[in-house]
């Protein structure tokens, strides 16, 4: 296997998954890039994760659910299934702060996992019937004669097409079409505990009158609206840009999309065409994306989200490959870095790219990463040390730095970073890694080098 194969597969796994251990990377490289893409997208080719075990370890509390999800990200044999659930969570941002009902929020994520790789029609239909979403955007108060336009507006503005592609009248009639789409109230929390709410369509609350939506007139219901939406080139373009922003390279924040053109219009067109020719089939669009040259060329063009940073670090140090107590600290860490899972700040979702970074969040990112890398007995670090040993010693400062960068990524860094690291390595001379007498000292040197690497600017990028 060549170094460039490894770098490309590592890139694929950072984007379509949550990183890869050295052992996993070896396996993926052997399989070959296109085959790995098939495995990622056609999830049935890989077994699902053992769910019973997860329930037993992490339980159903709010923290427990976040821990379970993060465990899945790190360990699922179907990483893209989790990555797409996270993608839709970004786009269809629903905050638990309003419902304060962990089960409803958890079931929404389960729904994203279930239909996230199907087609856009199905996805929007499930979304419109999802109790957490209905409550979040007040569709339970959207009734015949007294429409509440919150969901109708956001469905068009933030979930499918973006501003500029419909009129205020379209919003009104779209909202009327979703009247009566609500949920049956579950029993109260105390003392029964959490029960799921489920979707109901209340005939009497539904407005049966004539509506006109994007030029089509009739007694439209919510599903008709969705049928019309998914045929719009605007929908194809909007979802394509979201996919590009999430999987390929950072775009500006969503509200500016109607005025700022995409950085790579050809890529968006390629994705839009894939969307339109497949009736919004996500698998087809994702295969097109992951096999494209623009994707392969986009290494380190995206600031890692806190979730990507934390899961990537855990993959790097190789811990939590089986359920163990203590998992909850990881979603706790992403929250301090500005991404509390299940609780995006607004319906607009998290601001991404550069906006993940401020003095506080950068401190959290670096201190978390450095802290996780402080123990040479963690399996991932042990493996890095043994690979360094296998390369023979002594390692010159240049070799030491380059090999560590390769094993911790492979990570591409600028000259400033590399020179600083080499200078650091040189301050302690060549590394005689095979020497058993100095094992402790050597391990400490490797740990320190890895800590500086994960603290670098470049490591903040995926």
């Amino acid at each position, binding site marked *: 296997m060549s170094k460039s194969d490894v770098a490309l597969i590592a890139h694929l796994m950072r984007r379509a998954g949550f990183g890869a251990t050295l052992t996993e990377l070896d396996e993926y490289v052997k399989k070959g890039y296109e085959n790995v893409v098939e495995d990622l997208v056609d999830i049935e080719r890989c077994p699902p994760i053992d769910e019973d075990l997860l329930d037993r370890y992490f339980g159903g509390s709010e923290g427990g659910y976040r821990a379970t999800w993060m465990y899945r990200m790190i360990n699922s044999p179907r990483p893209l299934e989790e990555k797409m659930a996270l993608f839709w969570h970004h786009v269809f941002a629903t*905050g638990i*702060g*309003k419902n*304060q009902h962990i089960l409803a929020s958890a079931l929404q994520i389960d729904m994203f996992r279930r239909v996230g790789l199907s087609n856009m029609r199905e996805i929007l239909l499930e979304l419109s019937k999802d109790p957490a979403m209905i409550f979040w955007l007040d569709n339970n108060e959207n009734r015949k004669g007294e429409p509440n336009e919150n969901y109708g507006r956001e469905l068009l503005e933030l979930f499918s097409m973006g501003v500029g592609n419909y009129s205020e009248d379209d919003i009104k009639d779209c909202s009327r079409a979703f009247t009566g789409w609500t949920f049956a109230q579950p029993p109260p929390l105390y003392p029964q505990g959490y029960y799921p709410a489920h979707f109901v369509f209340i005939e009497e609350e539904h407005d049966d009158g004539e509506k006109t939506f994007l030029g089509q007139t009739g007694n439209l219901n919510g599903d008709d609206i969705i049928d019309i939406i998914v045929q719009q080139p605007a929908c194809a373009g909007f979802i394509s840009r979201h996919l590009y922003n999430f999987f390929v390279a*950072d775009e500006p924040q969503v509200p500016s999309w109607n005025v700022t053109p995409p950085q790579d219009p050809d890529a968006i067109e390629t994705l839009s065409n894939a969307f339109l020719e497949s009736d919004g089939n996500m698998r087809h669009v994702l295969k097109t994306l992951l096999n494209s040259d623009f994707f392969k060329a986009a290494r380190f063009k995206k*600031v890692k989200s806190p979730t990507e940073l934390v899961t990537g670090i855990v993959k790097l140090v190789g811990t939590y490959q089986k359920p163990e107590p203590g998992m909850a600290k990881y979603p706790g860490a992403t*929250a*301090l870095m500005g991404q509390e899972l299940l*609780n995006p*700040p*607004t*319906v*607009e979702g998290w*601001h991404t*790219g*550069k*906006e993940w*970074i*401020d*003095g*506080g*969040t*950068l*401190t*959290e990112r*670096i*201190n978390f990463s*450095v*802290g996780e890398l*402080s123990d040479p007995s963690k399996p991932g670090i042990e493996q890095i040390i043994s690979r360094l040993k296998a390369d023979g010693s002594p390692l010159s400062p240049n070799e030491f730095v380059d090999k560590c960068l390769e094993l911790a990524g492979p990570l591409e860094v*600028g*000259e*400033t*970073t590399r*020179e*600083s*690291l080499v*200078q*650091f390595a040189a*301050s302690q001379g060549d590394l005689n890694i095979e020497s058993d007498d100095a094992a402790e000292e050597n391990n400490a040197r490797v740990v*320190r080098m890895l*800590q*500086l690497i994960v*603290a*670098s*600017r470049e490591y*903040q990028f995926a």
Partner: protein
Amino acid sequence: MAVSKKDPVLVVVELKGGNDFMNTIIPYTAGIYYDSRPVVGLKAEEVLPLNDTLAWNPNAEPLKDMYDQGDVAIVQGIGYPDSSRSHFRAMDVWHTCEPIEIGNEGWVGRVIRELDPKGENVLTGVSFGKGLPRALALSGVPATSVDNLDTYGLMTDIEADPQRLQALEIFKEMYSPTIGTSFVMDYLSQTGLDVIKGSDELKKAPAMYTSEVEYESNPIAKSLRDVARVHLADLGTRVFYTQHGGYDHHANEVPAHPKLLRELTGAIRDFFKDLRDHNASDEVVMLVFSEFGRRIRDNASGTDHGTGGGAFIIGDHVQGGLYAEYPSLDPARWANGEDLEHTIDFRGVYGTVLEQWMGLDPVPIVDGAFEQIAPFGSR
């Protein structure tokens, strides 16, 4: 504006979870208080009257003492229209001053931008606690978030001192701006170096500080001691922000709320004593608030989320007393049929402090002109 030797400083204390204002400043002569609160209500003989109708919770005695000395303004009925009972939403509203739309810009972030438009001092706004509250979050405006002042900084998990110092030196080199890299890379450089600069500055504070005041051992006392240490180190911080958690007393309010009030008010007393001992108490005003008050009727163990609450403005320059009106106890005038109705908008209270103490135009910060109170009357 105050005639003060130094720039005015604001300390914001956020009580998280919804402080039970009705059990903090108690309408002790109103029958309806006792009827509504058979479990969590305090007895008339326990409370510390401040006039014919209102009394302090006895656990807030340190604040009562400061009130008696004329240093505490009690803002009696603070809130906003159509108050949200969700903690997160309500806190968002307080943090962003956006009760209808969902806002992204923190009001303290806007204050920092006004005070230091070029972002020259990364310590203009400092928050103590875990994570940066949204109140301080504003794109492009540096704000420093300190969890533990004594260990604040980067790569704190590297324990041994020479190693850590060397690592920090390498870090600075790795983050030095490089020509020809991307805008985001440059921004990362700037942010990373700002953090280093901030922590280098903040490091000075614990070393310079000596005090005879012994703060108690609890989170709010620790935070306020940190505020005192940084303020007294004279690092140019103009807004401090800190939080005191645990006020969400749906259940077991009777043992829990008094403990929090004792911790909070004791810490405030110690903080101002500390400043006074250092001749600095006239430089600081403190605003204490919570995202909402609690329901008038108790639920047999605690109280559920309500609307109108209370706030305190504290400091040497404050003219102590009661401000705004205590919410009506007449059931016909309860909000939602069960809540205290606010009598002043929180944005007017922010505005009061910003305009009358900090000397800033509050309109762009709180997004509008709101009725103010006059707790700095004599100045």
